[in-house]
């Protein structure tokens, strides 16, 4: 990605541009959206590997019944950190990295609106995660209460590292809020003339809506961890019934953040897929307008369904029914999106390069995750599914072949634009097929053990779950190791390869494809004029 250093300056586009600084200080002080995008993406990849390593630990312990390599105490720490690192360290920063790289180029802006703040929002993250990961080496160990950190397990019964956990969540929240303010301001103020809202590529639309969701819910997360801090250190009892509080209050506040968070991790993925499928189908996106409205509806609904994570918590029936109906409604706009993607493919002229493969796998496997999501919405059935491996299978289907496949699709799709070189298509496809098989072998059997009664978050299990857990572990190792292929493709592409054209892909539309490949260090210093192909 940093082949941008060598940026061949296109005389017809840049009059007064200068290249990046040399050395490490380039990355520390950079205010360039492309550099910051690169930083975010590499950081998220590092976190993805870290979280993956923890997943290896989980799957190794669950390979067979009995306790082999990880004792229950450590197991709980590992599942907690796996969740936190993957959600806050891998998926979210990857999408922010994509937004940094792409939003200015897609709307014809020279950079993000608030470049210095952009730098801060990134550089907070390494500190936040160093602090979080350092808790592994503290007395009492790392957070061991699950990534949902339900009180009072995370307050009265937490290890001392909980304070560091709270502070690192605060830092991540600050970073996310600054990042999303930047994205909103950029999109609303820096569009090139003629780039109307309904001209924007869907990736820009989905990120605009995501950024609003972030601003809405990150302060709620900050609030709930602050209440925990008060309970732990300052004698309050927000979440302690003995002092007049309520442990369930914690869950309501947490999931008011947590459910929109789920959509924060998937809406930009919708944007990515909506860019890739039209390109490789050589056909305009079907139903652009309905895609925008569906995204907005999903975002709205995401704010009123939080208690579907808490159906067993003892709510009155009116509450259960409201949250069930509202949750089921999400299937409608989500269905519209899937139908639109299928209709885009229909009667197209398709080719199946790596980004398209990832995008199609996204649609199919995300839909499977959607189906299990619909099943989970049905309250009486949820009493059987809740907190079992069925839930684990569900959310990994929407997060791994959902969000993460979309991120990989995006990287393959825009990599030639970023580096100026084509990646190795054979290796890319190898990476895809290994990941595709690995993901399904890992997570599909988890539906079975969940339905058959295996609770989640246990280090050891009854004998009837043994076969599928072993299959699942094998899949996880396959998926994990195949990411090394990804790393290899990335490095190989950055170091060289067949030169990419400006348009890169035959069917690509959008302003970023009017720029040279690699995109010049400073692009659109003068706003582009032609908006006829602003979105695919």
């Amino acid at each position, binding site marked *: 990605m940093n082949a941008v250093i060598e940026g061949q300056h296109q005389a017809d586009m840049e009059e007064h541009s200068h290249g990046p600084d040399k050395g490490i200080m380039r990355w520390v002080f950079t205010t360039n959206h492309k550099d910051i995008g690169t930083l975010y993406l590499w950081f998220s990849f590092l976190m993805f590997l870290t979280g993956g390593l923890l997943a290896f630990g989980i799957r190794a312990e669950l390979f067979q019944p*009995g306790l*082999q390599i990880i004792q*229950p*105490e450590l197991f*709980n720490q590992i599942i907690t950190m796996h969740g936190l690192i993957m959600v806050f360290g891998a998926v979210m920063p990857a999408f922010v990295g994509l937004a940094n790289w792409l939003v200015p180029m897609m709307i014809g802006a020279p950079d993000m609106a608030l470049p210095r703040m952009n730098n801060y929002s990134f550089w907070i993250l390494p500190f936040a995660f160093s602090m979080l990961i350092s808790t592994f080496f503290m007395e*009492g160990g790392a957070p061991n*209460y699950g990534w949902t950190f339900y009180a009072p*397990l995370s307050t009265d*019964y937490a290890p001392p590292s909980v304070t560091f956990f709270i502070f690192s969540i605060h830092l991540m929240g600050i970073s996310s809020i600054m990042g999303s303010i930047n994205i909103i301001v950029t999109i609303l103020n820096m569009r090139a003339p003629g780039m109307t809202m309904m001209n924007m590529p869907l990736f820009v639309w989905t990120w605009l809506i995501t950024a609003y969701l972030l601003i809405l819910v990150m302060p709620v997360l900050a609030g709930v961890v602050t209440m925990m801090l008060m309970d732990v250190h300052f004698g309050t009892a927000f979440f302690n*019934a003995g002092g007049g509080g*309520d*442990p*369930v209050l914690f869950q309501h506040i947490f999931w008011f953040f947590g459910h929109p968070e789920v959509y924060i991790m998937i809406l930009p993925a919708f944007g990515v897929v909506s860019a890739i499928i039209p390109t490789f*189908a*050589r056909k305009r996106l*079907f*139903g*652009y307008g*309905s895609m925008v409205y569906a995204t907005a509806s999903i975002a709205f609904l995401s704010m009123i369904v939080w208690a579907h994570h808490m159906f*067993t918590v*003892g709510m009155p*029936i009116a509450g*259960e029914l409201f949250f069930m109906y509202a949750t*089921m*409604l999400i299937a*409608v706009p989500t269905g519209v999106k*899937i139908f639109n993607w*299928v209709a885009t*493919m*229909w009667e*197209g002229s398709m*080719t*199946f390069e790596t980004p398209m493969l990832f995008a199609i796998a996204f*649609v*199919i496997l995300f839909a499977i995750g959607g*189906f299990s999501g*619909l*099943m989970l919405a*049905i309250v*009486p*059935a949820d*009493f059987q599914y*809740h*907190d079992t491996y069925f839930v684990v299978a569900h959310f990994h289907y929407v997060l791994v072949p959902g969000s993460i496949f979309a991120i990989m699709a995006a990287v393959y799709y825009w990599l030639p634009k970023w580096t100026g070189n084509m990646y190795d298509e054979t290796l890319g496809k190898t990476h895809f097929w290994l990941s595709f098989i690995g993901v*399904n072998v890992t997570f*599909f059997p988890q539906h079975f053990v969940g*339905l*058959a*009664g295996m*609770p989640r*978050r*246990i*280090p*050891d*299990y*009854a004998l*009837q779950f043994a*076969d*599928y857990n072993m*299959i699942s572990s094998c899949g996880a190792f396959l998926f994990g190791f195949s990411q090394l292929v990804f790393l290899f493709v990335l490095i190989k592409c950055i170091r060289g390869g067949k030169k990419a054209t400006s348009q890169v892909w035959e069917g690509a539309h959008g302003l970023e494809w009017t720029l040279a490949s690699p995109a010049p260090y400073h692009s659109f210093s003068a706003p582009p004029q032609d908006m006829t192909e602003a979105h695919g």
Partner: protein
Amino acid sequence: MNRTRRAWQCGAWRWMSRCGLLLLFSNSVFSNSALADWSAVNMPEGVTAISRDVYDLHMLIFYICVVIGILVFGAMILSMLMHRKSIGAKPASFHENTRLEIAWTIIPILILVAMAVPATSTLRSMYDASESDIDIEVRGYQWKWQYTYLADGSSNPAEDSDSTIQFMSVLRTPQDEIDNIASKGEHYLLDVDKPLVIPINKRIRFLITAQDVIHAFWVPAFAVKKDAVPGFIHEAWTVVDEPGIYRGQCAELCGKNHGFMPIVVQAVEQQEYDAWIVERREEAKIAYATFGREWTMDELLSKGEAVYTQNCVVCHQSDGKGLPPAFPALAGQGLAVGLLTEHADIVLHGKAGTAMQAFGVQLNAAELAAVITYERNAWGNDTGDSIQPKEVNALLSGSE
């Protein structure tokens, strides 16, 4: 008729799952025992009217999803086969169709309504609050369950409160099986020392709460899952049709041994239940009577070891060395060799801000006296101290 429908569903489920699975996995994986036993891959139907309703609902939604999946994925696969550039497909230019878009908004809504109707009616029957025959308090502790028969519903009601039935139910799987030293038994991790016993065909109400952190009481065969929240009491109920032993597990992360606190419910015929109740009441009375007498050191030590193994060993370990820093050692240091009164105070009332629970509410006076005595004399502690059940009772009542 109901049976034929179920048989059909069963057959259809087998057929569809087989097709779906074979797409994803190779034949070899599924040619083994898993194919023969479908309970390994699907929700159990259970043994209550509610659990069967839930199962039917689950299968209904599953079939609807399968049909939608076949249509959508079928269209995608067809398109991928027919509309590829390599066979000369030319792209069409359509990119919207208002009628189509309205149709695929309205139709899903109708399907959702069709799902919501049975879901709502099942949920309403689950929330039915009619009078119960038996009330049992279910209390989650780190990491065991306590059952108290508030109204035991036996044919001859209890005469006095001394005979209230209350007991702890703890994992029975030996540590050696967990550590892969001994071979694992049939009910590995799903066996307890004392199961909850209920009669069939009676309406049982569970009043569910917790002592420390949140747990969840789950018996899949009853389709009952309810969070046990400290400070709050939640309600669930069941009527079991068939005698049998039904196993479940805690379903909310509750700390270190979350995976090791199973629930076992034994459903029996009414006469058997009545007999069991009488026996338990007698036991409770005898235990109560023994609180007043003087216990010998040997009696205390042998009972103490049993109580320790059942209640203390997961944290403080069988060698008394604990798992510092979270779970301190008792052997040769700290409270167990310090002042007897301080030691007893912590055992009875727990220690705030730590995992040390208040055992005064979990164990009876004899058990408490025995375990305190045991801790003061095991692992070379040899303090020679002992404490009698009546002294424990005095400490307990003095503190109230």
